[in-house]
């Protein structure tokens, strides 16, 4: 239901962005996490996923004027671009792009949704917890480095890490 309610917003935003490219910012913010999650599932690491995500948004902005509203959510169009970018990338690597379509059919949406939701929930953590999560998992720094940066003991950082993960788990369960 919520998706249907969003459609007029999507349409207005798209039409606004087609008239005035500055509005693409809102489309970008709304769809970044899902596009990244879509790409990251089939990429071999964060760097590759980031490169491919950048390519998707560049292509989307470049061809925005060709987009015609036909009722499908904007994310569907972005997924299409992402699939083509992935297919081209896979082709270069000698992999079979057909697997992408199979993957999509085999419930890949659940995982994409979960990852997009997780990215959003990280932003909702308390600042200290968020910092620990970003430093520890995304930047993959050691407990000692994080402790030095935040001026806390290593034990305190480990507890923050535990609390942050528990919070994320609880929030995820409430959302699902």
């Amino acid at each position, binding site marked *: 239901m919520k998706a249907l309610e969003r459609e007029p917003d999507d349409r207005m935003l798209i039409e606004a962005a087609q008239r005035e490219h*500055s509005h693409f910012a809102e489309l970008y913010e*709304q769809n970044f996490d899902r596009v990244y999650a879509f790409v990251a599932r089939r990429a071999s690491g964060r760097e590759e996923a980031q490169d491919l995500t950048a390519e998707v948004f560049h292509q989307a902005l470049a061809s925005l004027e060709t987009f015609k509203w036909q009722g499908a959510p904007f994310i569907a169009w972005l997924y299409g671009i992402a699939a083509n970018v992935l297919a081209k990338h896979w082709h270069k690597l000698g992999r079979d792009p057909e697997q992408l379509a199979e993957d999509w059919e085999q419930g890949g949406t659940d995982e994409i949704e979960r990852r997009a939701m997780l*990215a959003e929930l990280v932003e909702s953590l308390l600042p200290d917890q968020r910092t620990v999560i970003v430093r520890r998992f995304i930047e993959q720094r050691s407990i000692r480095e994080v402790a030095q940066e935040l001026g806390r003991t290593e034990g305190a950082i480990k507890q923050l890490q535990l609390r942050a993960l528990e919070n994320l788990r609880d929030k995820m369960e409430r959302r699902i």
Partner: protein
Amino acid sequence: MNRQDMADELDGQVEMLLRSEDCAGAASDPLLKLAAELCVLPNPEFRSRLKDGLVEGWIANCPGAGSRNTHPLKSAKGGATSGVVVQREGVERAQALAGIALLTGKRSGLFPADHRSFVVSFASHAALIALIASGIFVVRNPALKPTSLTSELTYPLAGHGGGGSGDHSAVQVSKGTPPKFSDQQLTPPAIVVRNPEPKLPVEAHVLGPPDIKLPQSNHIGDLISSNIVMPSNGTGGGGGAAGDGFGPGLGSGKGPGVGPGSNGGYGGGPFRPSPSITAPRAIYDPEPEYSDEARRVKHQGVVVLALVVDPQGQARNIRVARSLGMGLDEKAIDAVRKWRFAPGIKDGIPVAVQVNIEVNFRLY
């Protein structure tokens, strides 16, 4: 087990997870499963950098762009993230409406069918078949690429940068030596001082690399001027300083540097990357094509292009610094001409910057 023990034990498992090659593994513990998923989230900086890149690159430069505003995305930050949560119905609907648009796939309904795609596809396939039939297709996958932007962290030497100004005097600027180079110009050079007792005296400089030493003397002026008789600030304008050009520099050029070029430094030409100037960054870099001639004889190598990335992020004055021949130089230029860059930045302002780009041509 108390909280600290739990935290220690979890961290031990997290540490093992982070050390594993793909940071994944079949974690059964929900917290570890979350940790594995967190490992592949994008870097927050990447998210904002990409947005800035879209702004600075495409929106400012795309000929079809509806707006020339260079800061719209920044203003849009916040508020929009609430829309990130996608309802499953939305995605499934998208899936049902769309499918994945792969030419090779069974499902191709993501976009409304566009007959032009089929025409292009037919034409390209026909061309490919003709190429194979003619026996000149030497490799199965004639790949091209990877292109890379190499930016040397050197400041402009003579021949790059420049500047000039003047106060519209009737005679050419006096011969002399320019003041010292500095990364920041607070006061432009002047030969005829109009205000001999300023409230806050500041030593005059020209903008350029401080480590470059030019000949110094007691007479500020243009090194190449022929006026050795009459003190003059020169015929130029724009800074009330010294020179026949325009801007707060010295010489016949334009800008805060010295000599006949523009923007800064000494000589003629744009900046080069330095610690105080961020190098341009390619944000849209389509691959070059391979020339038929080179493919036929399996000619490979690197073309080095020297070019200026202008403040709008476009490649200008492209020239071949290292040639590969067989049409590959031209293919490299064609590709790089389409590239878009986040321009070099000096003191927060986009500036033209000289860079070299290596374009790799490889047949796999």
